[in-house]
């Protein structure tokens, strides 16, 4: 019924049909939630802020707090200086956060509001911090916004106060779920490497139920920690698109060398994450992690024939899609369509290189939309579609099973609590993939092919 997509692919010049991305401010809002006691603030009209909170709420199923400048027609003519001033005053007197993290919207970007000088003019109470990021939505995507706000944390807060660097790592996790951040932290703890993860939304958007509402749940990277990132020995930026810029700035500002790695999804990317930690800190990989890896390989061995040669299409945020593509190929699957809505040449370069190395001919596109993906699928169908909730229209129209991974997932719960990163996360992904494929096989099987043992 939702099949309005013609098979023939033609060049299009006029915008997007069924987007595979959304706008910068929501990414900035999510990143800011990863600072302890921080209130994200949306500088613009009420509508944007309301949409962003609603969308995050739907994905995480947790309260998402953010204030707004509540732009009026007057403000959009005379500039939003007065709004920022009033907002700073009101935010600290009403909600009393440690940090107020301002991001702009299309509107305030277009009228050219100069946020740093507005902040300089505002009365920020002692001991409180205001940071900001420019997040015009007509550039990049929500991932760009996440990156910009993460970069702002470095720009405003990181300091190199010690002469020598501390034996500690900065970890920038990228736009992933709190469950993933918890898993990364567990791995670092097992490695016994001291670390600062930023932003860290665990404990904020997956906070426990206590019978009380807390404006600022317990989690998040503290301001002291953010300052101290300048003293770390290394920064591991997990995912180029969401994490690179902050890591590079940290290097420039505080001489903390940066390693850009893939989001640690799957066996290879997780290995690389651990190897980076081992070589930087001269640590042994603990048996517990060796064991997890061994279990993972064992499971892949047990199940590899389910996956081999199965065609798959993957879409979503670039860092996640790149890592997932590598992972499904390690299972013997064939990614024939790979797409992200976020623009960026390096996405196509990286994915094409991986496909080429594996001898796979596939469609690869950055800054694409789901209409195009749907057209690809009509021309070359797959066994499995991997992506966020919006994939369900295509999945239904083409009768392809959809495995939900990424952001946003609006029609399933629990996902944000469970990791897809690390060896544990890879196990979970394998379970999800094989369940999806085998359930489909059961559903489609003729009576005589219906098997008890698979």
């Amino acid at each position, binding site marked *: 019924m*939702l099949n309005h997509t013609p098979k023939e692919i033609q060049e299009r010049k*006029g915008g997007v049909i069924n987007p595979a991305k959304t706008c910068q*401010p929501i990414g900035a809002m999510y990143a800011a939630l990863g600072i302890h006691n921080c209130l994200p603030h949306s500088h613009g009209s009420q509508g944007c802020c309301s949409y962003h909170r609603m969308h995050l709420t739907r994905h995480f199923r947790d309260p998402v707090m953010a204030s707004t400048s509540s*732009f009026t027609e007057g403000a959009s003519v005379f500039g939003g200086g007065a709004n920022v001033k009033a907002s700073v005053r009101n935010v600290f007197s009403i909600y009393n956060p440690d940090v107020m993290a301002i991001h702009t919207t299309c509107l305030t970007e277009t009228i050219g509001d100069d946020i740093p000088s507005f902040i300089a003019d505002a009365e920020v109470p002692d001991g409180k911090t205001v940071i900001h990021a420019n997040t*015009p939505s007509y550039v990049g995507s929500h991932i760009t916004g996440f990156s910009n706000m993460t970069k702002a944390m470095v720009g405003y807060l990181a300091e190199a106060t010690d002469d020598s660097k501390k034996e500690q790592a900065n970890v920038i996790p990228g736009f992933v779920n709190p469950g993933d951040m918890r898993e990364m932290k567990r791995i670092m703890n097992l490695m016994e490497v001291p670390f600062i993860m930023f932003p860290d939304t665990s404990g904020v958007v997956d906070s426990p139920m206590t019978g009380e509402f807390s404006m600022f749940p317990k989690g998040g990277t503290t301001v002291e920690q953010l300052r101290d990132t300048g003293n770390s020995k290394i920064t591991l930026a997990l995912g180029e698109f969401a994490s690179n810029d902050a890591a590079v700035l940290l290097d420039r500002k505080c001489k903390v060398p940066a390693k850009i790695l893939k989001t640690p999804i799957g066996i290879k990317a997780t290995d690389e994450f651990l190897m980076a930690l081992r070589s930087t800190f001269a640590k042994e990989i603990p048996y517990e992690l060796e064991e997890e890896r061994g279990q993972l390989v064992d499971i892949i061995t047990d199940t590899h024939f389910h996956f081999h040669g199965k065609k798959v299409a993957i879409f979503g945020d670039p860092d996640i899609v790149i890592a997932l593509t590598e992972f499904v190929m390690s299972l013997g699957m064939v990614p024939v369509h790979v797409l992200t809505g976020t623009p960026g040449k390096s996405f196509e370069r990286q994915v094409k290189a991986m496909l080429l190395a594996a001898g796979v001919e596939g469609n690869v596109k950055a800054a694409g939309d789901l209409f195009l993906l749907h057209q690809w699928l009509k021309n070359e169908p797959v066994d499995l579609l991997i992506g966020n909730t919006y994939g369900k229209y295509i999945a239904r129209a083409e009768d392809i099973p959809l495995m939900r991974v990424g952001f946003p997932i609006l029609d399933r719960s629990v996902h944000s609590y469970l990791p897809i990163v690390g060896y544990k996360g890879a196990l979970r992904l394998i379970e999800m993939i094989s369940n999806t494929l085998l359930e489909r096989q059961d559903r489609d099987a003729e009576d005589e092919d219906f098997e008890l043992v698979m």
Partner: protein
Amino acid sequence: MKEDFRPQQDEIKERRDSISVKGGQKKQLKCDTHSVSGCVSQRACVYCGARVVLNPVTDAVHLVHGPIGCASYTWDIRGSLTSGSSLYRNSFSTDLQEEDIIFGGEKKLASAIDELVAKHNPKLVLVYSTCIVGVIGDDLDAVCKAAAARHGIEVIPVQSSGFIGNKAAGYRAACDVLLRLSLPQTANPLPKQQYTINYLGDFNLAGEAWMIKNYLAEIGIKINVVFTGDSSYETLQKASATSLNIIQCAGSMTILAEQMEKRFQIPYMNVSFLGMEDTAESLRKIAAFFENKEFNKNTERLIAREEAKVGHVIESAKQLFAGKKAAIYVGGGFKAISLIKQFREIGIDVVMVGTQTGRKDEYDTIGELVNEGTVVLDDANPSELEKFMTEKGAHLLVGGVKERPLAYKLGIAFIDHNHDRKHPLSGYTGAVNFAREVESTLCSPVWKYAKEGPHHG
């Protein structure tokens, strides 16, 4: 670890006039204004208002002219059902980029319209302007006019730049468009169809408009056009050929009804199909309008039959819910009023009522309806909601997407009365659904775990 900060309400001086307590000192509730800068507002924007009203026009291309966000957040978020085209469930956006902001987005808009018309062959394209379009000064009217001439179809701009007001301004923009679509294509007025009505302000969430249609059919009245649930370009054009407009969602549709009265001499009346009491009253009102004895008889028969069918469910709900208290936080004032009555019907007291866009007269009615001590507030923020729900001991909150997790964190039951929901809440079926939904959340065993557990000693 620092203690949880408790917001100090008294410090939001600007908010004082937006909150009142029944029985307290008399004062006028401030409403229909902008939110205070720096507050966590639950409100949406002009575009949002226009989009929610127009989106159920099923066979239109709904093209959002702006950067990607505005379109992507409003992609298929309403449960409006269709009996025909499903084109409205796609998300079309011009996805403006930096160079468009600098050089203007008119060209891109024009080619987007061309491509979409070529692909989907629609009779109607609605082009929504977002904040940024207002600022960069694209001439939406001109682009739409030219496109309309090029393709020989209707291409209508929806003036919905977010910052020019709040959701209510978006309703007005939507009504302008709907009125334009209602104008007969011929010079002569369309002949009025006897015993037909237009049904305004039902978006056919979970098929609600279809239910009402069946009730009215039983009475002998035909629905001519629904605004806008399950409507299409062609059905909207027949709107002037009817004898009465009934309005369910007054917030969004009163302006349209007024205009149609002026232009087509169609009288209108407010109705509500939320709860048994309102449903019966509304059906009687509609039947009475036609001054047809048969209709009155049919109505009474329908009401008697339906009440007999569901009365005992409501009655047993009432016993189950005795002593429970509810809080309301919804978009419009009219819905809040209906909900207060509906809660009363199932034996639940309302202790807090808030709306995003309630109007003065609606707040007056709310003030008359509720008990002493009930808190009434406009454009509330989350900490106010928390404060008053806790203070008043609410067991249940009815609200929208953003309020759900807030209630849950407080250990308060929740029902969704917004466009996310999947169950019809209209009419007699709706009255039962409502009671069942209240039961399924209020009586869930989960609240026991929330209030007990090792950490509570």
